[in-house]
């Protein structure tokens, strides 16, 4: 039987040139590099797309996503934390994203390459400098909005979800907002959904938001980019996200709730 020792011995097949270069690295360090900022950005986007295409080219499509409108009588058992309080209930939903596929996938984080507004310093929970699983900007671009709402509504937010959380009959939901037409696109190896929502909050304020959902059928991650920002802005943010695995694995059993919602929160 082959074991990992077999591969360890087989590393002797690495050519002398590469061994010397790695040796030089370990004994010294990397050569200083200079980046042309413009070129670096282009390379970054290209690297993401090529990486995604490469993964898809040699990987089976492990996950699938479908979307539907919830039936009027349909209820979903959603729970979430509000401060210290755990809130549970049977909720109606506007849009239901359902997933099928493997019970685990690689965890990812993302790095924004372009942001139109500052992000919240105490809210995004960066894993490491520049890398996020949740990113929020509460900058309110509309100066005409009521003063008591300023700073309370997300200009945009981006969050990572994973298909294995929903694979066992669960779903990723829009609860309070009923979307208009859902546009489907393909960006390289990614399936993309775009839609606009409008709803009235409990204080009778009209709320309009845009949603852009990135889904990787090969890797099982979902990144929802949404907020009050216009779709063009959200698309610019989404297209310049660099996504990479964290090295961790996410399993269905890691999640207590098989439903999650991605509504843009008011207040």
């Amino acid at each position, binding site marked *: 039987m*082959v074991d990992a020792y077999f591969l360890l011995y087989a590393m002797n097949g690495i050519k002398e040139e590469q061994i010397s*270069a790695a040796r030089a690295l370990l004994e010294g360090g*990397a050569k200083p590099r200079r980046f042309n900022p413009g070129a670096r950005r282009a390379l970054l986007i290209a690297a993401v797309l090529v990486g995604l295409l490469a993964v898809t080219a*040699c*990987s089976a499509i492990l996950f699938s996503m479908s979307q539907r409108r919830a039936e009027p009588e349909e209820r979903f058992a959603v729970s979430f934390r509000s401060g210290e309080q755990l809130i549970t209930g049977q909720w109606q939903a506007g849009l239901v994203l359902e997933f099928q596929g493997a019970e685990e996938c690689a965890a990812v984080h993302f790095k924004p390459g372009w942001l139109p507004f500052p992000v919240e310093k105490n809210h995004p929970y960066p894993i490491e400098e520049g890398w996020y699983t949740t990113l929020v900007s509460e900058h309110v671009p509309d100066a005409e909005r009521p003063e008591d709402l300023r700073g309370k509504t997300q200009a945009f937010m981006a969050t990572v979800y994973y298909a294995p959380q929903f694979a066992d009959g669960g779903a990723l939901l829009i609860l309070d907002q009923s979307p208009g037409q859902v546009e489907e696109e393909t960006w390289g190896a990614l399936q993309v959904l775009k839609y606009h929502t409008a709803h009235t909050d409990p204080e009778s304020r009209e709320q309009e938001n845009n949603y852009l959902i990135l889904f990787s059928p090969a890797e099982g991650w979902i990144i929802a980019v949404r907020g009050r920002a216009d779709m063009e802005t959200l698309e610019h943010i989404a297209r310049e996200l660099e996504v990479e695995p964290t*090295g961790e694995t996410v399993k269905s059993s890691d999640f207590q709730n098989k439903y999650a919602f991605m509504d843009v929160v008011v207040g």
Partner: protein
Amino acid sequence: MEDQAIVELYWQRSDRAIAETEQKYGRYCHKIAWNICMNCQDAEECVNDTWFRAWNLMPDKRPAALPGFLGGITRNLAIDRYKTKNRKKRGGGETELALEELSDCIPAALDTERSFEQREFQRAIGSFVESLSETEQQVFTARYYFLAPVAEIGEKLHFSQSKTKSMLLRLRRRLSCYLQEEGLW
């Protein structure tokens, strides 16, 4: 002393051959053995065995790249020693971690007798590494040839540990794909 001169000493069966080799490459080989064995005595014995093995191989061999030749011998000796000593116990260390990482690249039930030999894997891995970018080559080789800790590799490249781990994860996935495409499993 130049490498070719050291090789010449081996071919002349000169007593100075091993002393010159040890002076120039003792630390290098010790580092390779230490990364694998994580034990001073074992590393020292591997290095001494390397000189003995080199003495027996030259002549007939005339290595074009002496550090690679010596490092390869040390590496194999150290893996052999580690494997023998750790057959029944599971210890920490970079070798154990690297073995765990590499186990993702091949199916657990792969049968070596089926269709390939070690040299086929070596050839495939050599080609795979050649296909990588310069930085990827350095990261992959530092980790899986030299078994250098992830933190050390990241530090040398000014990468975070997370970024280094992510790069290694992607490289292992690509290796796994590459081995499949090559028909090795």
